[in-house]
């Protein structure tokens, strides 16, 4: 354990906190991706390269992409409802 670990830990906690606290969901999602990448570094520090790979690809990459996709849908999706949608009966 050294200063780098300390910094990484602080960064992890901070990004997690901010990701949850963000009232802007896009910002939250981006912060979460940052969190995932930081996690990947942490895994590497724990001599777990397999997890680091998986975290970067799946945890940060895939989950982050899914989240951003959802945020995108949310931004577009909310608008027609506000104007009074007619086609949502289906």
């Amino acid at each position, binding site marked *: 354990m050294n200063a780098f670990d300390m910094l990484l830990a602080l960064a992890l906690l901070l990004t997690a906190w901010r990701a949850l606290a963000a009232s802007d969901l896009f910002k939250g999602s981006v912060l979460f991706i940052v969190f995932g990448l930081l996690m990947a570094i942490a895994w590497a520090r724990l001599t777990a*390269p*397999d997890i*680091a*790979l*998986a975290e970067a*690809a*799946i945890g940060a*990459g*895939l989950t982050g*992409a*899914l989240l951003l*996709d959802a945020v*995108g*849908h949310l931004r*577009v*999706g909310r*608008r*027609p*409802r506000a104007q009074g*949608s007619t*086609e949502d009966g*289906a």
Partner: protein
Amino acid sequence: MSRWLGVSVVLLCTLLALALVGAMLVLPDAPVRLPGEVAQRLGESGVDHAVTAVLLNFRGYDTLLEVAVLLLALLGMLAAGVAPLRPAPFAADPLLVALARTLAPLMVLVAGYLLWAGAFRPGGAFQAGAVLAAAGVLLRLAGFLPAWNAPALHLRVLLAAGFALFLLVAAAGLYFGAMLRYPQPGAGALILAIETGLTLSLGLILAGLFLAGPETPRARGGA
């Protein structure tokens, strides 16, 4: 949710955090240590990389169920009900299209490498599958792949193939004395076969988690 409840949840979580930290700080040494045993049995596992050996041999049963979980997530999405199939919903950025053209084949290559590497160094089916899926998503974003919410038969076969193969091997293990037991000389080959099947199916499933999403007003707007 009342303010009072919020404050008490914060308080409880703080207490939880303190308790967890405190408890972990006073932990004595663990009486059982598995790394030694893993190293000792690595020779019998059929692969040289310890994590892969645990993942696909010693605790292969976890992995079998985990693939079922993935398939299940996709099934759940399909069951939640989605609007009928629509064509690619929006015109993609030309830059993205170019990127996808270049990157996608490269990613398939990387996936192949990861899969092969898993036997003796970090890597394996899941990472490879994730890269494949990423390629799929990229292609989707570039408009090369349609969204699908009612996968056709051939797609369903491919989605299930990896898991089905794994399941078959698990059942065949019974012949050798226990579920998921690999015959001694062929363990390495079997694991590679399973991993190949899984890579393909996992890539498809993970990509499917994007592609099989319900249609949203954005898609409607494009239609």
